């Protein structure tokens, strides 16, 4: 084909606006007559709000309105279950919405003529609290005598419990020659996307409440807003301007509902921009999980049994904990065949900030345990860790821990080979530089579902228009999938271009508007290339068929439905939870300074099966970005709280990697084992390279120093403590 596009590293069309400052993020938007909003957040993590005194604030200069709980028609929201009040306080008809359960809770909003007037007035609101006991530890909160945080949702703080059970555990462990037991701790991680939350809301030409604020799923934002306002969905419109990063942290609503509420009440445009502190305190985080594990293998290097218990801190509200922890349950076996397997996964409500979606969605935590268990078993058996993994790798037809085979082809073996070869694992020689510098290598693998799981009928909508007379003059693609920086708008054009044989750069893309487009699903679960790719491919093929029958213009809509999945069985976890997986293996070399405890990652080889790289440069960019973010998780980032209060609430205290902190070299190996259902064989990628890095670094630290560190992050202090150099 003359316009062959799939497989080409085309530049991003959105880069032109981004390098010239023309691109508009939500904080850059304005409209005539625009008012400004400021939110009063809770100033304590658990309390009953007895009274909110707004009189002084209402009388302050420039103030147009102050809204509290009693102004919200249906005072609840939540992506999975509506367990969070929009505004906490007395006077709403939902039960217990007067209770503040974490510092992210919002109490009131002030709308004023200027931002500084709103800021001035919000400080004049007086809140009368009755403090309640603060639960910060999920292990305490899950005890039967703990105070209940959501009394209207049952008599326990355990909000999620999944069980997976396959085979005979006693017989399995009896047949083991070596057993490794461990307890692992994974930390909270903050998304720290560079653009703090912001939004502009107004009434559009049809009088619809229109919210322009970055998110990850237009339709979910729309229905969350309309539910809280007690309106039908079509009275609310969600448009995405440019989005300054997301990584899962924009899946849950932040500023959208209160903006919509204010526009509805005042009939004037309203804008808000969160500060960095408001962003860090105001949105969810990666789940911290405590994991206990016991795994056994035979002398000849076969896994025979594994038993795990994962206790995740859900924080104050559900957000997507039920899905994140389901995914942690599945990935807690690693990408291996284990004949006897048992996992119990708990999610527990506490008064910490809500735990939420974050790149990897439960898999990085579960794999930190699984891959360290594998490395420790390999050491005990005296086997090479890559070889031990190959011995036990999942393959087509072998059952996963949920009792059914993974949808094929299963490519973990190819990834392990690819990582091992590029790293030259078998030729590795440890170089010595200085006496206090120790080098070592580490290996880890991982896997992750592509698309939504557990019985949800995955779907994705697209529309394609072909205009012209004799020749094609114009192609328009309509798709609402969120461009959060990953490059999906580029991929969408390439897909349509390939089908229609038309230059990708000439394709017009109409993006992210709930009023004109069907449901795209979320830009999460590494699903957008797979789902939007299939949807746009389907719509483009249908439009092209009409074009060929002389229909002018040729317009087609298409809704792609992915293969069906099933939910966990309650007792055994038996299921076909996913329709596609992607696989990854990584080898790393690190340097540990045993005097300072500093860990430097010298080299990362990441072999990722992407099925088909639609745009190879963008794939490599995703791998490099994910590895640096995972390196932050493993080595740099150190989130701290005290009694439910966030101590690291600025980028000066919550440090994320600069170019001086990152692995010195990242080698991306693109493995391409096509998924039969993916567009041109594509799987999913966005989360994949994140998954095995922390355990690979842990294994390398062990190789370098002889100590295992079972808790992330590997800060100098923790490394020195593990080395016995400090207490």
């Amino acid at each position, binding site marked *: 084909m003359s316009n062959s596009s799939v497989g080409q*590293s085309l*530049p*991003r069309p*959105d*880069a*032109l*606006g*981004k*390098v*010239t*400052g*023309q*691109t*508009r*993020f939500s*904080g*850059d938007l*304005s409209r005539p007559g625009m008012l400004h909003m400021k939110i009063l957040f809770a100033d304590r993590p658990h309390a009953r709000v007895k009274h909110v005194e707004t009189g002084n604030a209402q009388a302050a200069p420039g103030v147009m309105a102050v809204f509290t709980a009693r102004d919200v028609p249906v005072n609840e929201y939540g992506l999975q279950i509506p367990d969070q009040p929009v505004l906490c306080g007395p006077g709403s008809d939902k039960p217990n919405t007067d209770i503040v359960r974490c510092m992210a809770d919002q109490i009131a909003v002030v709308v004023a003529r200027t931002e500084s007037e709103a800021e001035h007035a919000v400080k004049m609101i007086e809140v009368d609290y009755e403090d309640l006991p603060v639960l910060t530890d999920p292990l305490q909160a899950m005890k039967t005598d703990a105070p209940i945080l959501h009394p209207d949702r049952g008599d326990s703080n355990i909000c999620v419990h999944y069980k997976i059970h396959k085979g005979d555990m006693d017989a399995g462990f009896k047949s083991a020659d070596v057993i490794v037991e461990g307890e692992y701790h994974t930390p909270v991680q903050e*998304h*720290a*996307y*560079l*653009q*703090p939350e912001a939004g502009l809301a107004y009434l559009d030409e049809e009088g619809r409440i229109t919210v322009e604020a970055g998110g990850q799923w237009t339709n979910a934002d729309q229905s969350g807003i309309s539910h809280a306002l007690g309106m039908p969905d079509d009275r609310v419109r969600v448009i995405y301007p*440019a*989005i*300054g*990063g997301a*990584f899962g942290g924009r899946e849950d609503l932040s500023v959208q509902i209160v903006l919509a509420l204010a526009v509805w009440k005042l009939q004037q445009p309203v804008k808000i921009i969160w*500060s*960095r502190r408001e962003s860090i305190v105001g949105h969810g985080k990666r789940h911290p999980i405590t994991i206990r594990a016991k795994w056994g293998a035979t002398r000849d290097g076969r896994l025979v049994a594994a038993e795990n218990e994962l206790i995740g801190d859900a924080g104050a509200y559900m957000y997507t904990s039920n899905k994140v922890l389901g995914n942690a349950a599945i990935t807690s076996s690693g990408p291996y065949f284990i004949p006897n397997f048992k996992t119990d996964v708990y999610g527990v409500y506490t008064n910490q900030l809500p735990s939420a979606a974050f790149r990897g969605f439960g898999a990085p935590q579960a794999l930190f345990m699984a891959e360290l268990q594998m490395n420790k078993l390999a050491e005990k058996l005296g086997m090479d860790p890559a070889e031990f993994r190959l011995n036990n790798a999942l393959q087509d037809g072998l059952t996963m821990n949920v009792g059914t085979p993974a949808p094929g082809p299963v490519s973990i073996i190819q990834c392990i080979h690819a990582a091992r070869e590029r790293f030259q694992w078998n030729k590795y020689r440890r170089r010595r530089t200085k006496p206090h510098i120790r080098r070592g290598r580490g290996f880890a693998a991982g896997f992750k579902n592509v698309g939504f799981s557990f019985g949800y009928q995955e779907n994705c909508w697209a529309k394609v228009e072909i205009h012209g007379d004799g020749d094609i003059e114009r192609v328009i693609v309509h798709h609402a999938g969120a461009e*959060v*920086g*990953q*490059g999906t708008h580029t991929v969408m054009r390439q897909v349509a271009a390939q089908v229609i044989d038309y230059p990708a750069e000439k394709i017009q893309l109409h993006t992210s508007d709930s009023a004109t487009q069907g449901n795209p699903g979320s830009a999460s679960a590494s699903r957008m290339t797979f789902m939007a790719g299939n949807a746009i491919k389907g719509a483009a093929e249908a439009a092209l068929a009409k074009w060929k029958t002389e229909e002018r213009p040729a317009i087609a809509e298409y809704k792609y439905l992915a293969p069906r999945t099933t939910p966990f069985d309650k007792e055994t976890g038996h299921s076909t939870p996913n329709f596609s997986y992607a696989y990854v293996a990584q080898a790393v070399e690190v340097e540990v300074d045993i005097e300072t405890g500093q860990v430097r990652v010298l080299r990362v080889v990441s072999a990722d099966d992407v099925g088909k790289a639609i745009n190879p*440069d*963008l794939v*490599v*960019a995703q*791998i*490099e*970005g*994910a*590895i*640096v*973010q995972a390196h932050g998780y493993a080595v740099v980032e150190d989130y701290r709280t005290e009694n439910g209060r966030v101590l690291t609430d*600025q*980028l*000066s205290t919550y440090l*994320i990697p*600069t*170019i*001086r902190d*990152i692995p010195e070299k*990242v080698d991306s190996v693109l493995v391409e084992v096509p998924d039969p259902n993916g567009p041109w064989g594509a799987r999913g990628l966005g989360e994949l390279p994140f998954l095995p890095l922390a355990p690979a670094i842990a294994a390398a630290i062990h190789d370098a120093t002889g100590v295992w560190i079972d808790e992330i992050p590997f800060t100098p202090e923790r490394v020195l403590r593990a080395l016995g150099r400090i207490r």
Partner: protein
Amino acid sequence: MKTTAQNLFDLSVTVNGTRYEQAVEPRTLLSDFLRHELGLTGTHVGCEHGVCGACTVLLNGESVRSCLMFAVQAHGREITTVEGLGTIEKLHPIQEAFHEAHGLQCGFCTPGILTTVVPFLEQNPHPSEEEIREAISGNVCRCTGYQHIVDAIKLASDRMNK
């Protein structure tokens, strides 16, 4: 320097070649002045206290953080923001390289990186990779992993030296 009756300051500043005479409050940050008063929203604010570098602009050709400066400190001087580097029709070679070499993802940090790189490449037209890394070590990017940014700067330097 003059202040008016309402304690406003009569600011005179040249931004992207245009001279502005405007009364501002002395406490107005340069970043807020550029974004809210002049509508130059290409200058982004990511942390409000000089950590992330997204708000970087050129003050008389030198990179400065506009969130750490008051607008009045730019009195009588020249500011260049990302909008002043080039246009979509006529890109600056550094902008062109970031477009071609995938030097960005979400793009929120990009204006600050470009305005850091412009004076860097003027002062050091043939930088080593190590020098490039040092030059952008005060700018935070959460998406790219930085390698494509380094590659784009190398490409720009090659092009500008031809």
